[in-house]
């Protein structure tokens, strides 16, 4: 009887240990996968930035500051055209590949989750969002499309920005409705997007 009890106890200890090892392995594999996702994302960003730099170099430079607002707009347009010419067949998901998308979506979801995330969600979908009902300009969420200068830019909550992978200053995350877009700030261009990210 006693031997039987001891056997039972040993079995449960062994089971617990197996469970612990399995959990630890799963966690480590998840962490590894997050690292891989980040690395993959960085690779896509680097690749895009090469195109961006090439495009900027291909158009006449303008001074860092000028009183000529038309020149600024023209320069921005020229860079956008050059980028389009360098990636004419760009498709949704080229930067936000399935693995990257998974990572970004998880981060966004976490940032707006629960009571803590309510104000972050409200910030994203609030007045600055072009689809908040206060903007009269429709934004065509399409790869390589120009972000209209007449439309507002959504406010992205700091808590979310600090969790998302960092971007070079030429790129930023914004929301149009529930879609997360990657915007080229110099060209005012939509590089890629994730539909229904929030």
């Amino acid at each position, binding site marked *: 009887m006693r031997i039987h009890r001891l056997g039972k106890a040993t079995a449960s200890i062994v089971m617990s240990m197996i469970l612990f090892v399995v959990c630890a392995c799963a966690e480590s594999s998840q962490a590894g996968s997050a690292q891989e996702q980040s690395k993959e994302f960085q690779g896509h960003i680097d690749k895009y930035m090469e195109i961006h730099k090439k495009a900027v170099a291909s158009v006449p430079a303008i001074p860092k500051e000028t009183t000529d*607002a038309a020149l600024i*707009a023209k320069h921005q347009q020229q860079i956008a055209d050059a980028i389009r010419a360098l990636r004419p067949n760009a498709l949704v998901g080229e930067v936000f590949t399935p693995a990257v998308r998974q990572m970004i979506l998880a981060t966004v979801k976490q940032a707006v989750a629960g009571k803590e995330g309510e104000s972050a969600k409200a910030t994203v979908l609030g007045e600055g969002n072009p689809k908040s009902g206060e903007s009269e300009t429709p934004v065509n969420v399409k790869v390589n499309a120009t972000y209209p200068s007449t439309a507002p830019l959504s406010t992205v909550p*700091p808590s979310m920005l600090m969790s998302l992978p960092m971007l070079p200053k030429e790129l930023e995350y914004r929301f149009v409705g529930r879609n997360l877009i990657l915007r080229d700030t110099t060209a005012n261009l939509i590089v890629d997007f994730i539909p229904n990210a929030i």
Partner: protein
Amino acid sequence: MKPASKSLRLTFVLLFSLLFQIQAQPQTRPAVEPRSAAPVAAAQQPVKQPEVKFAILGDTGTGGREQYEIGQKLTATRGTFPFEFVILLGDNMYGGESAKDFQNKFEKPYEALLSTGIKFYASLGNHDVPERQIAYKPFNMGGQRYYTFKPKDGVRFFALDSNYMDQKQLQWLENELKGSGSEWKVLFFHHPLYSSGEKHGPSLELRKVLEPLLTKNGVDVVFAGHEHFYERVKPQNGIQYFILGSSAKLRKGGIEKTELTAKGFDTDNAFMVAEISGDAMSFQTISRKGTVVDSGNFRRVERKAATND
């Protein structure tokens, strides 16, 4: 300073006080809060008495009649209160940023001021296209979404992009605030950390990350826009907050007065003028009709305590 110009200045100060009835308002005085001491090097420097006059406009870029009228009133005010520059609290361009927009929504309404060499320093709002505005010389942003400038010894202004407050910007702000030692620290950006606005209310997300930095680093005053009215918020953690988002747009009845409100004005458009003199700052909020709707002064008592440590 020459005796003649000194007496002229004194006369002006007296006239200014009489004309606009500046009243010392104890409630505008920031509560003395313990703050981290200024860096030793800064504390050992000789104390300079800054004298800066400036004007404040928020949510301006409509190109509408109200904006032009405020522009005229601001120009007229400069006759009696010779401010040296103007800060813009964002939403400098609504609904388009073509060259014509820059003319109609900025250059023309403030033509009289611009022609006399008055500088404007802009911050970005959610209706602004950053890359177009940071490169626009008359906005004096130096090609940056956020930046700092020092109009006089002892006073430093910080313009932030509250629409995209990322880690880089926060780090930059912390470094700049730390580096500015015992100077007056005046921050301006679009989204208010505190507000009694019925529509937007305070930007809680921004407050979470920004307020600890501001209180830790001895910020004195914060100007924000976004809400299309004027509100002077009771000092929070030793910082004086103003909202001025009605220099062209107006949300009539937009304030739902709360215990935060020291003074609110939501029945007409408005602009502000302010003067930093030594350890005191005086301000006036003036409506489109030219009425002084709020005024007062406060002293940054706690700063002295910090620098004397």
